[in-house]
């Protein structure tokens, strides 16, 4: 697996980790407890209580502490044990803590890195121009390595969000590719396309960034003549060598109702994409592979 433990990887949508909940995520084969206190930011820890090895993702979030399901040991957001219920009057020694990972929230997604401290996030492909107004849509999970999926995703036909409302009733995938090209450094590619049956002046160009060096983040920017550019981000999570997560975020319109429609639209698009990725032999309407 080429993805390194020092890189930042998306592991979930921010809104898929509500306050007061804990869940398990797998990254590069590592079992991770991801949780969020009632008031705080996301935490990513080794999924193993230091006491008896119980997976902490099964724990209860109590306020801003995570309480292990087995014996109720409570850990604060610094991953420090603060309370051992079997010894109510004893303050746990500082040595009782859980190894934690760097964890950031950006672009609608939660990002982790397994090695190194929490710095350096701003320099990565994960931190981009969709941060402030990002809208997480859906995560899908499919069999296959990140490498395989990234190869197939680059060149996929990504519909622009502004067309979401219009395209809702139908499949929204009826486009045709007019032209495509690849940047010299392979860091981005451009596809020009139009909706089938429409006039050429309605053509869009869609560019893909981040193919190299961080193949785990694919950023798609759709441009038209008269509308501002729109971005869509697909962040790939190498769970194991045989299983990969794809987290899809777009940008917020600033309007709740429109955002709701966008999430519905891209949620459905993600489901089609998942089917396509599960069926590599099948032709996919709306997917144009690079040649």
């Amino acid at each position, binding site marked *: 697996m080429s993805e390194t433990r020092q890189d930042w990887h998306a592991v979930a949508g921010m809104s898929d980790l509500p306050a007061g909940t804990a869940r398990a995520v797998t990254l590069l084969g590592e*079992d991770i407890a991801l949780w969020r206190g009632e008031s705080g930011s996301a935490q990513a820890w080794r*999924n*193993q209580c*230091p*006491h*008896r*090895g*119980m*997976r902490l993702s*099964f724990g209860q979030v109590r306020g801003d502490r995570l309480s*292990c*399901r*087995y*014996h*109720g040991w409570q850990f604060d957001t610094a991953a420090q044990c603060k309370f*051992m*219920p*079997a*010894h*109510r009057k004893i303050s746990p020694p500082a*040595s*009782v803590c859980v190894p934690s990972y760097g964890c950031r929230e950006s672009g609608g997604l939660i990002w982790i890195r397994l090695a190194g401290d929490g710095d350096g996030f701003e320099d990565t492909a994960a931190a981009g121009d969709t941060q402030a107004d990002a809208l997480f849509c859906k995560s899908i999970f499919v069999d296959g390595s990140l490498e395989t999926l990234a190869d197939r995703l680059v060149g996929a036909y990504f519909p622009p969000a502004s067309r979401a409302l219009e395209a809702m009733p139908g499949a929204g995938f009826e486009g045709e590719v007019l032209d495509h090209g690849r940047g010299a450094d392979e860091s981005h590619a451009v596809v020009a396309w139009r909706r089938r049956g429409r006039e050429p002046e309605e053509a869009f160009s869609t560019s893909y960034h981040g193919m190299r060096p961080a193949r785990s983040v694919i950023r798609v920017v759709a441009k038209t003549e008269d509308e501002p550019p729109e971005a869509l981000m697909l962040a790939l999570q190498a769970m194991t060598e045989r299983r990969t997560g794809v987290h899809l975020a777009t940008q917020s319109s600033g309007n709740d109702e429109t955002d709701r429609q966008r999430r519905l639209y891209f949620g459905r698009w993600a489901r089609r994409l998942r089917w396509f990725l599960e069926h590599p032999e099948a032709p996919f309407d709306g997917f144009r592979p690079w040649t």
Partner: protein
Amino acid sequence: MSKDLEPAALDQWYVIESSEDLRSDQPRRTRLLGRPILGERSASGTVTIEERTEEGETLRKLPCLERYGYVWTTLGAPVKPLFDMPEFEEDGRRLVVCGVLTVRTSPGRIVENFLDLSHFPFVHTDILGAEPMTEVTPYKAKLDESSGELWVTECGFYQPQAMAASSGAAQVDYLYRVPQPYAAVLYKSSPGKAGAFDLIGIFPQPLEETLCDVHCFMLVYDDVSSYEGMLQWQQGIFLQDRIILENQRPARLPLDPKAELPSRADTSAIQYRRWLKNLGVEFGVA
């Protein structure tokens, strides 16, 4: 045949089935310490147990005992006879055989959980414990040199419903006996007979290092509860533990004292791990 096993694992007695469920029309094809086993009862009632190859050919006949409602065997040469449980001779007790429940973990994790007091309020909430009554008072855990058994004594815990027959919360006295590494029996104040103890025992049958069939019994003074009521009470308790046991990492029991951090309430676990290490147990430990 699988890898060579150490005497500490081979030379124990293991339950492979309850006497009741090993019927002439129902042989038990199972595994023990990673090896295929067949247990059969003839029409006349005689039990035979054999170790087989993976292809199902007989390798050898194994020793066989029927006691305490169970069929026992061993793959090695135990230095001691099967441990004695005189309580089975006492009048007025009822035996509940809880059936085989499978758990994906090591036998050591299962026994250690059985000896554990401080999980009661969190795993068996409102039955064997309840917050905020979580304090574990000091107790003793000691290897009895003459018998070679581990005993955990002077335990007490506040329990909302200590047994099926309990009518309300009570401070309950406990003691535990671990007659061999992979078998354990607990004694707790009986709600059915003042001053007496009810027994609950577990006999993990390690199929593989991290996969066990667990045989569990209760031997109680209880004239109130139905057999099914008592059985299902215990099965419910077991399934509360099971989701914990299957989600401990690693599944093998770590014997290195620095691998996991115990507290004083874990005295029994500390002694248990030390004992396994001194005995040279390798099967199912890390």
